């Protein structure tokens, strides 16, 4: 079992940061909903409020790590141009996708949308985390702020989901490969 360094970075970007962020979204939404609703009779404890603050800060870190690693580490490998005379496009995913009418949509729709909409997630969740850090349990006394915060949390999930789904499907069509090979384990014939 081997893996290239570029595939490893792609894995960290997509599964390490992106997928973990998507998983965290549902928890944040539920905690924000029940922790800040007036219909919920009991006041959230200080410990629970502190936990949600740390949880949201972790989500902010994950969201920024996902977009920054995507834009500045993985994306340059994806959009690299082949030198003149190179006909094997396996190491140039964007050009490989654009070389066939059957796959060009993965770039012209998928990547073109993903590369921009992904940034909605960190911007939205940074705002959400700031508002919760500022207001804490007092957010239940600001129903309109609370509604907007929940709306932006849902948006951050949607945008990260669009980016994640297209990222996975594009990498399946034209994987980012190359760089140093990492030997993970030796196979055994059965």
């Amino acid at each position, binding site marked *: 079992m081997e893996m290239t360094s570029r595939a490893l970075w792609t894995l960290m970007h997509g599964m390490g940061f992106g997928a973990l962020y998507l998983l965290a979204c549902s928890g944040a939404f539920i905690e924000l909903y029940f922790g800040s609703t*007036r*219909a919920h*009779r*009991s*006041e959230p404890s200080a410990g629970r409020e502190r936990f949600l603050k740390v949880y949201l800060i972790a989500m902010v870190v994950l969201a920024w790590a996902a*977009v920054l690693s995507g*834009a*500045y580490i993985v*994306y*340059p490998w994806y*959009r*690299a141009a082949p030198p003149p005379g190179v006909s094997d496009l396996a190491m140039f995913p964007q050009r490989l996708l654009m070389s066939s009418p059957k796959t060009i949509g993965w770039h*012209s*729709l998928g990547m*073109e*949308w993903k*590369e*921009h*909409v992904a*940034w*909605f997630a960190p*911007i*939205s969740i*940074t*705002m959400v985390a*700031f*508002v919760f850090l*500022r*207001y804490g349990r*007092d*957010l*239940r*006394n*600001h129903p*309109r*702020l609370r*509604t*907007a*915060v929940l*709306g*932006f949390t849902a*948006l951050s999930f949607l945008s990260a989901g669009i980016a994640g789904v297209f990222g996975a499907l594009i990498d399946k069509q034209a994987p980012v490969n190359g760089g140093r090979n990492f030997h993970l384990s030796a196979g055994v014939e059965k």
Partner: protein
Amino acid sequence: MMPQNSANSVNAPAIPNGSGAAAILAAGIGLFALAALAVAADKSALVKKGLIFYTPTGALSGVTTVAILFWIGVWIVLEMRWRNKTVAVGRISAAAFILLGLSLLLTFPPIVDLF
């Protein structure tokens, strides 16, 4: 005796809503700036060239950097103005969500191709 925190009780907010409203509107404006810059870079070769801050990433580097700086700048200004105020947060949130909807449309390639 009525319990203070019954299901339908409304307590007076301890913190004015201005700071939260500033963050929400700034996020809407920042996202719209990102989408508008992405469209501008797609439609104008000159804008695209000007937004290439880091060659391997192309214009995406400039689109996102300028949008983030603009978002933070707008946020700081709004925070300074509204921090200790109570503002019409319903209308401000509505404006932020309208900007958000427009931003989503403007990043969708088939919509961008209409321009």
